[in-house]
């Protein structure tokens, strides 16, 4: 027999072969290191949450939702304008970014030639755009949308800027959802005489909806928490009316929190914490919905 074959000849099983040949310590030690890392992460998070809950609880009440901010009377001030402002901005962002993002993803997955130069260029750029810091989008929004397009410091400017910010995320997650639809579904549909568009509209998109929705919710929840770009865009920090249209000035929750935290009186800090609770609850709700969708519709093929 040649030596090379001997090298991988089966090993005999003898007495002692099946007993442990390595020391126990690294195995156990490593386990504890991992657990410790997990504990640090979780405890920090828990401490943060506890801190916010405790400091915000006194003002986490109905007034927060029904009253407008006030410089003079923090005791009865609320965050209604910021809450409605967030709703205005996020709904507008969704209305703009979802159709555009989904259609872009459909083009890339179903129509584009994946080996084409243009396609690869777009692909790399989308990946990169998803990693661009949000403040950069703020600068873009300020220069192009607020000034060049003269849309000013309005809801629509904020929504357009946030749309740009989350479009890459929506495109990427929708593409993944579309790619997960098996080819056999497309062939089955086409073989019945459906056109390409009918196949996409009636088979591919419905099958990709859970994945798309999950990605969209996560993207929108990122947009809700953003303060940096909107600070640049001049979301006004003190507003005592609800937005009444796309061209209205506005404020949003993270900005309102920022504003209150930078006040000197303690009562404002309590307000800030209370509004943090609202923001956290909202995000928890959205992420919960995303997880629910993902689990409910996971693996249907």
């Amino acid at each position, binding site marked *: 027999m040649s030596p090379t074959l001997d090298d991988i000849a089966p090993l005999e099983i003898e007495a002692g072969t099946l007993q442990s040949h390595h020391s126990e310590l690294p195995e156990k030690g490593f386990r504890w290191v991992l657990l410790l890392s997990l504990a640090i992460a979780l405890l920090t998070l828990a401490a943060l949450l506890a801190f916010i809950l405790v400091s915000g609880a006194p003002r986490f009440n109905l007034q927060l939702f029904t009253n407008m901010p006030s410089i003079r009377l923090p005791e009865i001030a609320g965050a209604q304008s910021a809450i409605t402002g967030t709703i205005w901005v996020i709904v507008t962002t969704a209305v703009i970014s979802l159709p555009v993002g989904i259609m872009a993803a459909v083009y890339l997955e179903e129509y584009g*030639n994946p080996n084409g130069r243009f396609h690869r260029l777009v692909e790399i750029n989308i990946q990169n755009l998803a990693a661009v810091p949000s403040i950069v989008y703020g600068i873009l929004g300020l220069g192009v949308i607020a000034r060049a397009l003269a849309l000013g410091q309005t809801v629509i400017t904020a929504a357009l800027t946030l749309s740009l910010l989350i479009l890459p995320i929506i495109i990427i997650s929708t593409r993944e959802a579309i790619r997960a639809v*098996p080819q*056999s*579904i*497309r*062939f*089955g*549909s*086409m*073989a*019945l*005489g*459906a*056109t390409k568009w*009918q196949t996409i509209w*009636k*088979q591919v998109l419905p*099958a990709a909806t859970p994945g798309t929705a999950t990605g969209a919710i996560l993207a929108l929840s990122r947009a809700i928490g953003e303060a940096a770009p909107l600070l640049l865009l001049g979301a006004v920090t003190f507003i005592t009316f609800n937005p009444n249209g796309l061209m209205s000035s506005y404020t949003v929750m993270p900005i309102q929190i920022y504003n209150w935290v930078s006040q000197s009186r303690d009562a404002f800090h309590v307000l800030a914490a209370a509004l943090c609770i609202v923001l956290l609850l909202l995000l928890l709700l959205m992420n919960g919905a995303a997880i629910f969708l993902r689990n409910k519709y996971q693996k*249907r*093929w």
Partner: protein
Amino acid sequence: MWDAGETILNLWNVGVWYGDYHALRGVSMDMRRNEITALIGPSGCGKSTLLRSLNRMNDLIPGTRVDGSITVQGQDIYAPDVDPVEVRRHIGMVFQKPNPFPKSIYDNVAYGPRVLGQKKGLDDVVEEALTRAALWDEVKDKLKSSGLALSGGQQQRLCIARCIAVRPQIILMDEPCASLDPIATLKIEDLMQELASDYTIIIVTHNMQQAARVSDRTAFFTAKLDGDGERFGELVEYDVTHTMFTQPKDQRTEDYVSGRYG
């Protein structure tokens, strides 16, 4: 008996290219109305390739090209003014792996007619298609449940029902029983023979007994090397099934049908 069928599909010198690769060459044959034609041959000889070119499913694979001519009832399906979507409406296809849509049984069957714009009378179409596909009794009480919840054999019959709901003239089947157990296979075979009174069926199979049992005619393909050492598929022999299995003219056919191939 087999003389009764008129020619419905005519292939003349058909070749199929995948990019630069000339996978299938020089296939000329006639398929007859209301007959079952079996395509047999070793793996990679181009049976699926040929089948897909008959309803222009090949168009969906980038870089694919067909030469020669394929006519259905005298009309060239590759003529420039022909819409491949229309071709597929009239020449249906059932795939190797059952591929029901992730929708209800009812919606699976109604999908084709709906895509064609039909809105009324869908209940009747669904019932009739499922009945013809020998599935109605098994599913009539659960039309709203998912097509994916059926067994493999039932799923394949659902796919056949879905196919006949758009009233095709010809049904192409690419190894429709390959993923089924023997009993489900027999059911599909019975069904094919039922359907042959109204439809023309072309089936790819690796199962010699199946070809012998269900088909009227059999075409044997094989792969060989050309001058440049490139493998390509060609039609070796095409005849009435009984003749193909008892007195084939070509030695290669005889070796293959008697299991001495390779």
